[in-house]
């Protein structure tokens, strides 16, 4: 049980560092499916688990010079009201509704990842011979 939780943690961290998404989107199902938490508890616990991951990830990225600090502070500050509203909304919904919405979110994130892959490296060589190679 604990070993599985730790494995999920490591995997989620790797994906988060690699793709910039995937902390919470793996934490929540991991907490529900492996540790047996309810959807509300899993989401709340996921938020707390994300904090150390984001701190270390940010410090590492900052060393590579990738963090734009002003924008990050602005974004983080502006999002607090939204986060409060989101938490209130989550707690107003039933666990089942929240779970189904979360499953839909996971599928959307998956679709987004696939689209990103297709649009970044996916220009078909046949479709635009002028830019070939």
């Amino acid at each position: 049980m604990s070993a599985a939780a730790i494995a999920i943690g490591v995997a989620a961290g790797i994906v988060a560092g690699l793709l910039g998404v995937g902390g919470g989107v793996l934490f929540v199902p991991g907490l529900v499916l492996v540790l047996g938490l309810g959807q509300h508890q899993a989401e709340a616990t996921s938020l707390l688990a994300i904090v150390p991951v984001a701190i270390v990830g940010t410090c590492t990225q900052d060393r590579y010079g990738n963090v734009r600090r002003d924008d990050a502070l602005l974004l983080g500050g502006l999002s607090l009201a939204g986060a409060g509203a989101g938490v209130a909304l989550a707690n107003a919904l039933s666990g089942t509704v929240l779970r189904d919405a979360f499953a839909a979110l996971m599928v959307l994130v998956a679709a987004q990842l696939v689209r990103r892959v297709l649009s970044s490296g996916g220009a078909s060589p046949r479709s635009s011979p002028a830019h070939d190679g």
Partner: protein
Amino acid sequence: MVIGTLAGLFSGLFGVGGGSVIVPLLVLWLGYDERSATATSLAAIIFIAAFGAAAQGLYGNVNVLDAALIGLPAVGGVVIGTWLQQRLSARWISLLFAAVLVASAVELVLR
């Protein structure tokens, strides 16, 4: 401003960082490259997740022990992931991760 509000709402509602909202919007609207977008998104998420966790704590939903059990190993993982990001194409990992997400979503609903 819209990005921040949307990301916060999303994060609070779903218990995720909000990176899946922030990253594409930074790329599409503000012209960020992928790496700056993921890095800046991670930094913003520190504030979003900390505040969201505190708010959820008021509802008594936060399980600190489980958060540590899953979050601390993830810290090691994120260092490895960030190191890898500088060195390899995320193409296949993205596709694999997408498959894992869909499978987990199905299991979550059917369970």
